[in-house]
């Protein structure tokens, strides 16, 4: 993976010194709260419901074992001994002291980590496919360009105060695994006439107004990635709405302008920058790409793996095809039943770092599904990895299954949330605790967000759950049929929302309709696409008073 050189190291050290001084001036009253706020946000520091929250970047999801050990260490030393992986390659600490944050940043800088631009109205962390470099269906490894983009976004002087946050995702596989259709900019690497480049998608996003992105340019040769992104950002920085934070994302601008006119504005702007000094050179690409060369894979003989059912179930769900014979990628599930999805303790971080050192060249990745991936494990080592992962509580075989859900921190931690999300996740995990049943249900994405900001990506869950506030009570709206991937689309709302108590039953009913209706080879989504929303809706609301009857019931109560 990428190793910092002198400038990278110098800049993050200078960032620590800068923030230390900003905290000092804020405490001394020289910086007003409003003046300090964007500064701390651009260093990942929120003031939250119970305590500050500190968001650490894991650029494009890549970590080495020393970095993960440091994350475990800072979580133990400055927090309560655990952290939370988000859907955008970040680790969040929920209980640090503001005064400690410069120290945490200094410790992170020692291992080439930072919290730069993990929040605020600026260019955010670049995200990509956690299987980059090893995926069997990869066309081009996105990581060198992701690193080049990371450097470009870092302290960009023109785009530090955008109308709103700005997220870029890059994918290099046939099947998109980076949710590129729902980012401010999504980049699809591809080859055309022997040339490497991207399809550039713009104006996608989840959140309050979910919109699928649109293609702003079918093909852009890779050398132009920085100038073209500058052109998009300049159009957005100047024309994006600043009068209403809810209408300030680039998706709103693209919708209002129309994709053709927007595309023309970008092209006009780009014409001035095209082929200028910011055009990438082969030398720079090669310098960065040299950090992402394949590790020293060994030739593997065919091995006979144990046939024990628990092990084969884990292999079935938590391992993934690798482009090198004899190797597999392994997902360590952070979705143990009864634990908040995405949470990991300091002890677990240390255990995962050991696993990476012993079995996967000392490297690991964070997925947007909030799990950890060991990308290069010998198949012969799978039994040992399984045993150790199991001992650390990281081997729940539920990847892609109902309880492998995505879930945001929700109302237990987050100021923005309308409702709690973790208790809903835990209640559903408790209801579906039988592994055989989970396997029988098969592949299904359940995504839970505690508010319309959609950190839990509920719109693209096969089953999406959204926390809403109704007359100061917490309710949950359910959508069906959303999906990520090349055919990414938004789920459809099934009907009126439910109370927290009802949620396990609601999910149970949805699952029952699927099980009763499915053809032999159908996954949940296939059945849904064939039979539509109504059968699910009818079952879920069966016997429930609604409309006038509901009002009458309420009045009687």
């Amino acid at each position, binding site marked *: 993976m990428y190793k910092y050189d002198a400038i990278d190291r110098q800049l993050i050290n200078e960032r620590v010194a800068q923030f230390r001084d900003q905290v000092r001036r804020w405490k001394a009253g020289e910086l007003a709260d409003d003046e300090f706020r964007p500064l701390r946000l651009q260093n990942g520091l929120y003031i939250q419901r119970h305590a500050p929250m500190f968001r650490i970047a894991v650029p494009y999801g890549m970590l080495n074992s020393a970095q993960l050990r440091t994350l475990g260490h800072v979580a133990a030393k400055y927090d309560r001994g655990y952290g939370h992986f988000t859907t955008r390659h970040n680790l969040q600490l929920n209980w640090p002291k503001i005064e400690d944050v410069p120290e945490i940043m200094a410790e992170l800088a020692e291992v080439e980590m930072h919290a730069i631009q993990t929040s605020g109205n600026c260019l955010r962390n670049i995200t990509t496919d956690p299987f980059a470099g090893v995926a069997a269906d990869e066309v081009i490894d996105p990581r060198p360009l992701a690193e080049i983009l990371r450097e470009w976004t870092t302290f960009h002087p023109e785009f530090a105060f955008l109308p709103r946050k700005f997220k870029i995702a890059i994918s290099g596989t046939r099947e998109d695994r980076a949710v590129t259709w729902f980012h401010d900019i999504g980049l699809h690497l591809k080859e055309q006439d022997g040339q490497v480049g991207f399809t550039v998608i713009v104006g996608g996003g989840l959140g309050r107004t979910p919109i699928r992105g649109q293609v702003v340019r079918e093909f852009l040769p890779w050398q132009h990635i920085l100038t073209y992104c500058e052109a998009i950002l300049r159009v957005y920085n100047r024309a994006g709405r*600043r009068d209403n934070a809810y209408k300030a994302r680039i998706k709103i601008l693209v919708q209002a302008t129309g994709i053709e006119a927007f595309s023309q504005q970008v092209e006009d702007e780009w014409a001035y920058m095209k082929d200028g000094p910011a055009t990438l050179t082969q030398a720079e690409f090669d310098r960065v790409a040299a950090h992402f060369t394949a590790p020293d894979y060994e030739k593997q003989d065919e091995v006979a793996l144990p046939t024990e059912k628990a092990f084969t179930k884990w292999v079935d769900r938590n391992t993934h095809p690798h482009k090198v014979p004899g190797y597999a990628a392994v997902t360590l599930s952070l979705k143990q039943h009864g634990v908040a999805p995405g949470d990991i303790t300091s002890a677990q971080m240390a255990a995962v770092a050991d696993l990476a050192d012993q079995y996967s060249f000392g490297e690991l990745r964070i997925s947007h599904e909030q799990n950890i991936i060991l990308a290069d494990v010998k198949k012969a080592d799978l039994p040992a990895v399984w045993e150790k992962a199991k001992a650390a509580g990281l081997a729940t075989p539920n990847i892609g299954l109902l309880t492998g859900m995505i879930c945001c921190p929700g109302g237990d931690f987050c100021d923005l949330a309308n409702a709690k999300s973790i208790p809903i996740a835990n209640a559903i995990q408790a209801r579906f605790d039988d592994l055989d049943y989970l396997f029988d249900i098969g592949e299904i994405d359940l995504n839970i967000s505690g508010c319309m900001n959609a950190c839990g990506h509920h719109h693209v869950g096969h089953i999406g759950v959204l926390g809403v506030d109704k007359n100061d009570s917490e309710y949950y709206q359910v959508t069906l049929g959303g999906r990520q991937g090349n055919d990414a689309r938004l789920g459809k709302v099934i009907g009126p929302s439910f109370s927290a108590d009802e949620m396990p039953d609601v999910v149970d009913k949805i699952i029952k309709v699927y099980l009763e209706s499915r053809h032999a080879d159908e996954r949940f989504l296939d059945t849904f696409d064939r039979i539509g929303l109504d059968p699910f809706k009818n079952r879920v609301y069966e016997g429930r008073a609604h409309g006038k009857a509901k009002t009458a019931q309420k009045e009687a109560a």
Partner: protein
Amino acid sequence: MAQLIKNDTLAVDTWKTLELAEGETPESVALPAGDIIFPLAVWQARKTEIISCHKRIGLLIQPDELIEDVAGDLEYFIVIAVNFPKFVDGRGYSTASLLRQRYRYEGELRAVGDVLHDQLFFMRRVGFDSYALKDGKNAVYALETGFNSFSDTYQTSTNQPQPYFRRRA
């Protein structure tokens, strides 16, 4: 009064900015004598008049005003002041970049309004060379540390047209 930082030192501001009182319009406002920074609308409405009675002319541009609209007039201005009504409104950074990089404006480019210590580094990078630091802020400390937060940069910008990757040894 804002504190003017210029040429790496605290400077005396000789310019006055014409402000329209209630009821005044760009067409009707009296044009004062001296070194005046004119709002863009006044410049557009009274260009000939201003040129005839002022040798030294300044322009004030707001975040929602497009520099393209006066791109042909830049030779008239000794100073262009870009207003930041709130420091989180980042449109002025693009205005400055365009003025310097596209329109090759070489006069004084001044950041005015909610101009604070922690944005000075970015402002210099996009091409500002004078800064009306907000009243009540420590201008000496800003001069000392505000411009050298970082010793180098990755991207191209006005004050460094070559990206770091083209300057690697």
